[in-house]
């Protein structure tokens, strides 16, 4: 310490502030570094230019609007209005470089029919890129990032089994208007033994369990007036598209978690639970009309169609 003190006491060109603490502790009065000072002046100049260009100062019940403007089209006519974040956004959405490039492709999609899009590698590449993003933003929360769904809750989109139809038009309709799947609860209608029988029959349709006496009794309930299951699932239990009823003859299960069950008894329990509780307020898909544009929905119909099992 004493060495530095002696150093500081040497006479230098720089003035001190004139203060002295603890007898000998002094403070140089160096000028501000030039680069710092000029940067500071530059920010002042920037601020003044900014005041002229952008909305800034409040004046009475209004504010200075700035001289910049943004141009956008609304209701078929072009409007130029003062710049603000909202008018700038409109301009960006309509004539920004990214938006313009994207619109080119969306217009192509809108103009083409589904079969053409499916055969055009360039359009399909765009569908895959844009569709992936839109899917992740809107659809993946329920259907999973890859469209695999959640067994028991949300349908799988990558297999070739469709509740509401898997053609382009069907998928487009489903996205636009949403869906509301419903199956009544059979808790009060069927007793436990009957529920067992129906579950056995349903599982025997896809060979999950061997057909036996129980399933034969279940068939009576399924096809008869007691259960009346055929009314929605169809005579052949293959499901009816307009009702969104499941095809029960394949090994694809979306509500009853049959694949996870290892024993025939567990499989019957899984199916029984669904028949017993019904499907009430569970299979509700919101309508995306309004949240997505018609072009986006069309694009998504193609994207989802080619995820796996489009018909």
């Amino acid at each position: 310490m004493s060495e530095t003190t002696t150093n500081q006491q040497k006479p230098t060109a720089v003035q001190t502030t004139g203060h002295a603490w603890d007898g000998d502790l002094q403070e140089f009065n160096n000028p501000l570094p030039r680069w710092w000072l000029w940067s500071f002046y530059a920010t002042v100049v920037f601020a003044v230019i900014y005041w002229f260009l952008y909305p800034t100062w409040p004046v009475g019940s209004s504010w200075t609007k700035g001289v910049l403007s943004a141009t956008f089209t609304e209701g078929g006519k072009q409007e130029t209005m003062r710049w603000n974040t909202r008018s700038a956004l409109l301009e960006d959405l309509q004539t920004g470089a990214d938006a313009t490039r994207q619109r080119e492709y969306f217009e192509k999609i809108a103009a083409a029919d589904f079969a053409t899009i499916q055969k055009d590698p360039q359009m399909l590449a765009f569908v895959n890129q844009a569709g992936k993003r839109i899917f992740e933003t809107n659809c993946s929360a329920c259907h999973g990032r890859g469209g695999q769904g959640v067994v028991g809750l949300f349908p799988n989109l990558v297999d070739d089994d469709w509740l509401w139809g898997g053609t382009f038009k069907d998928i487009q309709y489903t996205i636009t208007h949403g869906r509301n799947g419903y199956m009544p609860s059979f808790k009060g209608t069927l007793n436990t033994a009957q529920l067992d029988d129906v579950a056995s029959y349903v599982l025997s349709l896809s060979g999950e369990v061997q057909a036996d006496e129980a399933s034969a009794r279940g068939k009576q309930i399924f096809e008869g007036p007691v259960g009346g299951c055929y009314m929605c699932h169809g005579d052949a239990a293959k499901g009816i598209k307009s009702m969104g009823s499941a095809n029960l003859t394949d090994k694809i299960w979306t509500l009853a978690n049959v694949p996870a069950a290892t024993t025939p008894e567990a499989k019957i329990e899984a199916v029984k639970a669904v028949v017993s509780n019904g499907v009430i307020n569970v299979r509700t898909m919101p309508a995306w009309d309004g949240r997505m544009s018609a072009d986006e929905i069309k694009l998504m119909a193609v994207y989802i169609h080619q995820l796996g099992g489009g018909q």
Partner: protein
Amino acid sequence: MRHENIEVNSGLMIALIMVVISIGGLVEIVPLFYINETVEKVDGVRPYTPLELRGRDIYQREGCYLCHSQMVRPFRDEWLRYGHYSLAAESKYDHPFQWGSKRTGPDLARVGGKYSNQWHVQHLLKPTSVVPESIMPNYPWLLNNDLDYSDIADRMTALRRTGVPYSLTQAEYDANVKTFGKTVADQLDISQAQDNLLKQARTFNYDGLPNRVTEMEALVAYLQVLGTMVDFSKYDEGYFAEFR
């Protein structure tokens, strides 16, 4: 004033520092109160119903705002991901507002109607069961806890003091009928709060449990109304730009 006088007098220095710092705040905040166009004039924005209000309280209790903002900003990327940018009018009855700037999770300003009630219930119970890559914690108690709505009238009365038009008197009720229509005005009537809360819970059954009113019920009711009050198809986009 000599610089030294300030430097050696800490009381004066504190006072002057406060004056200097408050200028920044005053310049930014005060004009908002007398500039006419701060809050957009739009139809549809209404105070929360009693059930939604309890949901909002639970939203705050659980600290959802720590990870989720409720403010879609006017940029193209946000527009594409979340939808229409938020209006000041849409949070005029929020005390406190939930804008936020921390987005560990996605913005929720337009989440209403985006997913089904069933999804919200499942997602709140265990987010990874529907979104495997999610880092959001589980909130299983929301479905176990019955909703305490005994003090709903007090909660609405408190908000009424901050200027939210929940009605106590006939005159206030009549004014609400004029502003919002009868259906909404009934929901804002503090004396009917409990009945309204139970009726909404029974009608919509947000939590999927028909015989119970859980905290989940209130929270999902709140989430499902977020960002849905203004019908944007009724307005030209340029209209909103006029307010800025």
